């Protein structure tokens, strides 16, 4: 479904992502791990069109992605969350999700300005869709709260809800469990599984919480200093000497 072939990006003399190749197939729960500064988020930025790769290719469902602007990537069916939460702060929780759901709108601007019945109907539909998603992520009770007033864990869940509202086939989660306590991260584990099983989305995620990654992901790629150092199922990664040296460390 998603294929990176020798993707490379250089910022001046710095090679942030160097010759990385991996393939995510439909229905995967795919993990992207590595120490800080390894180029994980940069990988996400390459996929979602924030940056254009210096060389190499990124293909989504056989279509070349590199150079496609972010909003186009979202329309093609890839949605993401942000590591440093980027909600629309002054908007309500519901509105945040409706912005994303609006991607699939059909009614034109003119009807909206004239407040025609089809626009009213569509707005209601989008709100209902958004509300249904908020229920899945247990955010329905705070739907009308301003998003910046939410506690941290809820803001992270809202990021996921917002990304899901674009109805993507591939969901990129950038450190979804960051700053969560064990209880919250267990809840999140269930939610991510539900996203895959119930909503048929493929998930590619960056995470530092190893318990979370090893429990959840079926396939993992490890990056270090922009290079790919290992790839495989969790068991193989856990015992891979290179990964232990670069990232996991010796078991004490």
């Amino acid at each position, binding site marked *: 479904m998603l294929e990176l072939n020798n993707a490379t990006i250089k910022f001046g003399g710095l090679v942030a992502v160097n010759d990385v190749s991996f393939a995510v197939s439909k229905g995967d729960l795919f993990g992207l791990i590595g120490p800080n500064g390894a180029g994980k988020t940069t990988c996400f930025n390459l996929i979602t069109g924030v940056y254009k790769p210096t060389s190499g290719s990124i293909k989504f469902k056989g279509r070349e992605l590199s150079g496609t602007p972010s*909003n186009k990537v979202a329309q093609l069916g890839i949605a993401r969350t942000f590591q440093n939460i980027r*909600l*629309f702060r002054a908007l309500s929780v519901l509105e945040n999700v409706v912005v994303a759901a*609006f991607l699939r709108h059909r009614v034109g601007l003119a009807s909206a300005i004239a*407040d025609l019945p089809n626009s009213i109907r569509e*707005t209601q539909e989008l709100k209902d869709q958004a509300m249904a998603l908020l229920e899945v992520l247990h955010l329905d009770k705070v739907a009308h709260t301003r998003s910046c007033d939410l506690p941290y864990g809820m803001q992270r869940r809202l990021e996921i809800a917002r990304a899901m509202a*674009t109805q993507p086939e591939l969901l990129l989660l950038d450190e979804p469990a960051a700053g969560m306590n064990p209880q919250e991260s267990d809840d999140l584990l269930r939610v991510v599984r539900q996203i895959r099983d119930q909503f048929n989305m493929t998930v590619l995620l960056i995470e530092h919480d190893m318990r979370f990654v090893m429990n959840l992901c079926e396939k993992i790629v490890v990056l270090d200093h922009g290079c790919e150092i290992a790839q495989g199922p969790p068991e193989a990664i856990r015992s891979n000497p290179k990964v232990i040296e670069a990232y996991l460390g010796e078991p004490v």
Partner: protein
Amino acid sequence: MKYWPTRVVSILAGLGACFLISAAADASGNDYTKRLVVLAGVWVILSVSLNLINGITGQFSIGHAAFWQVGAYSAGIISVQHYANSGITGLPWLLLMMVAGAIFAALAGLVVGLPSLRLRGDYLAIVTLGFGEIIRIIVQNQKPLGEAYGMNVSPKFQFTWLVWLTAFAAIAICRNLLKSAHGLPFLAVREDEVAASAMGVNVTRVKVTAFLIGSALAGVAGALFAHYEGFISPQQFRMEQSFIILTMVVLGGTGSITGSVLAAAALFYLPEKLRDMGPVTGGQLMAGAFATVLAVYLVKRVIDHFHGTKKEAAIRHLGIVLGCMALSFVLSIVLNQVPVLANARYEAEKLRMVIFSGVLIILMLVRPQGLLGHAEFSWEWLKRVLGQRRSEAAQTS
């Protein structure tokens, strides 16, 4: 409530309001009052349209008077050159000129918008500011446009109701946009462009749309203004005017349509009221300024520290303000003992810009989000407030 009945009733109510305003202006029987009513409508259109660009989409544009000017001059010159041989007269011609003003101003919006929308914040502000000046100077150097002397626009069309109908239309456009899901991408661009783009919002398109609608509305205001006044000159569209429009938007609360309308009316009538006031002495001026600052400071302190019921807080604020007014009166008598201060005379109207900036500074200190913040007037809100009153009354009785 059913859709069509509500729609028909609200449109009829809007039309009715326009004719009421018009009738009231006519009934006053003096041209000065009538002109004030019309110009207030023009300013409402201008501030509501800038609010769409500045408050709702978050694009800091400070050259709005340029779009107004483009609308006024393009409609004006077409009228002067083609009205006589067009065969169209009266209202239809004016409507045509409004469309022309809108189209030319929207084109100007596109010209300034497309290259500069990659810029953010301060940089966009500088570009729009420069653009405003460029337009004014170009106009000032065109022979057919009357250069710096200005241009007579004939025929004059003085339809008070039409100006207010346009103002209501501008309000309706913004309100409908915000009510539908279509408005959310505009707000999303204001909040976070990167995130908006990742959610599939075409950021450039949203910004250009906002600029197009906003500048087209300003152009319509220009066409109406030119044909009402019958005379336009570059002096009427100085940078100062752009800042007044911006002040209206910021004062009302960036993003709030209700706020823009209220602030436009208030800031338009304030200088006119100041005109009626006689000159003040230096002593009075100093005492007034001192007392205002003191009152604002104290009210701010009370807001910060006081967590009582609203009613008590309101009484306390009122007390502070009244106290400061009394203080100001006493102080002005004392200060007027100083001959220099007593002999200095200031025309209140000429202090307009000073007062504006003072008001803005005070506002930024006390309420940085503007008078209304992001809040809007709505019937639900009114119902809720009235409902509370009623339930309170029921409880006490």
